[in-house]
């Protein structure tokens, strides 16, 4: 399923840094990863930046 070409594409995508759309060094609006994964090993792949918007009352 993951031929070499896809692996390469993956590597390139993966090397892209996470977003840099906030300036506030102490911004803490997005969820804490393990917390949002609710007791799973740390993963932030499914996190979204919440500095602007994302005001749902639901954690999940």
């Amino acid at each position, binding site marked *: *399923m*993951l031929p*070499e*070409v*896809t*692996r*390469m*594409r*993956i*590597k*390139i*995508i*993966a*090397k*892209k*840094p*996470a*977003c*840099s*759309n*906030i300036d506030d*060094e*102490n*911004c*803490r*609006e*997005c*969820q*804490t*990863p*393990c*917390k*949002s*994964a*609710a*007791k*799973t*090993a*740390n*993963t*932030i*792949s*499914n*996190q*979204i*930046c*919440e*500095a602007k918007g994302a*005001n749902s*009352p*639901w*954690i*999940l």
Partner: protein
Amino acid sequence: MDSEAHDLFTKIEEGLDPFSLPPGEAREMVLGLISEGIILSKVDYPRPQKLSPKSLCLIVSHACNMACTYCSLSKATVEGKLMSPETAIRAMKWLIDNAPGIKVDVDFFGGEPTLAWNTVKAAVDFSKEYSKTKNKTVRFSMSTNALGLTDEMLDYCDENYISLILSLDGPKAENDRCRVLKDGRPSFDAVLPNIMKVAQRRQRGWYVRGTYSKGTINFSDSVIALHKMGINNLAFEPVVSNVSGVAFSKEDIPVIREEYEKLARYYVECKKTGVPIKFYHFEMDLENGPCARKSAGGCGAGAEYLAVSPDEKIWPCHQFDTEKDFCLGTLGDPPTQTVYDKYTIKNHLTGKRECPDCWASYFCSGGCIASNKLQEGDILLPYKMGCLIQKIRLEAALWVYSELRE
């Protein structure tokens, strides 16, 4: 990407200086990708300077109404203590008073939190009112085995937007291997009706969380079977254990890879044909993810994520409950800036020796420090099996992402 481009990127990976490329299409493409920050990007990731508790795991119960054989809290659950409503309120007040941001997150955890239902309600009722006076928004979740989940509890959870994380390890045979009741009887038939109730009444704000182990290594079948039963929100995690017959070894890695790949194909098929499904670890958003600073801060344990146990002790996270050397303080004597600094510095990508050069580092940040401690004896040494599985899982998630984007 054609094979020429593939060879070129491989050489760049191996150290070829892209600026030494001869003029032409390839050079233009590579330099373009660099200037857009897509490849070879360098980011600075400063550590947060301030004490910044943002999310709390309230371990409201050291008691449980089940006796799962792999329970990580079994040491703590022996004495079966429940958190008092007063303690929960003090913990919430401390968090709301000290959180630097607007959003504050809380998970009710155990043991089994429904056994301390009055404490859960006291914490929620207090926080709703108190947070208004401090201009904060508190969001709740509860991790439960669903055995004692009543309609009254579900109504209250709906009214207060309490997300539910429901434990189930698969269909009957797989679930009942480890998830058993106090008297040793299987739990599947007892918990399923409550789980299906949640699945039927909620669009969002819940998922079923399973654990797979050596004995249930074909977990993609479990996920697919649950999905076919109408459970659309799912997350499955590898067990972290040293027990033989439960723990994974290197030889299991090819099977685990096949399992994620099989699940990824099923997932893409569902998404492409409009069948609703959410597998937590395949839900990836590369465009709107958290900033680099957040990514490098990892899970935040001990820095922005803390746990409080029924005896009012504060821990770096729920997994450290009862690990005396890791106790950060108590609600009466809360952690100081110095204590925070210790963890903010340690639980950070740059503190984990093997991680900063890893391709997955923005998504993993050096893994779970509790698992690192348990398996490698050092919170800064990535747990080897976890590291391998993390990369496999992320590759599958990236494949899903690229398939669904096209």
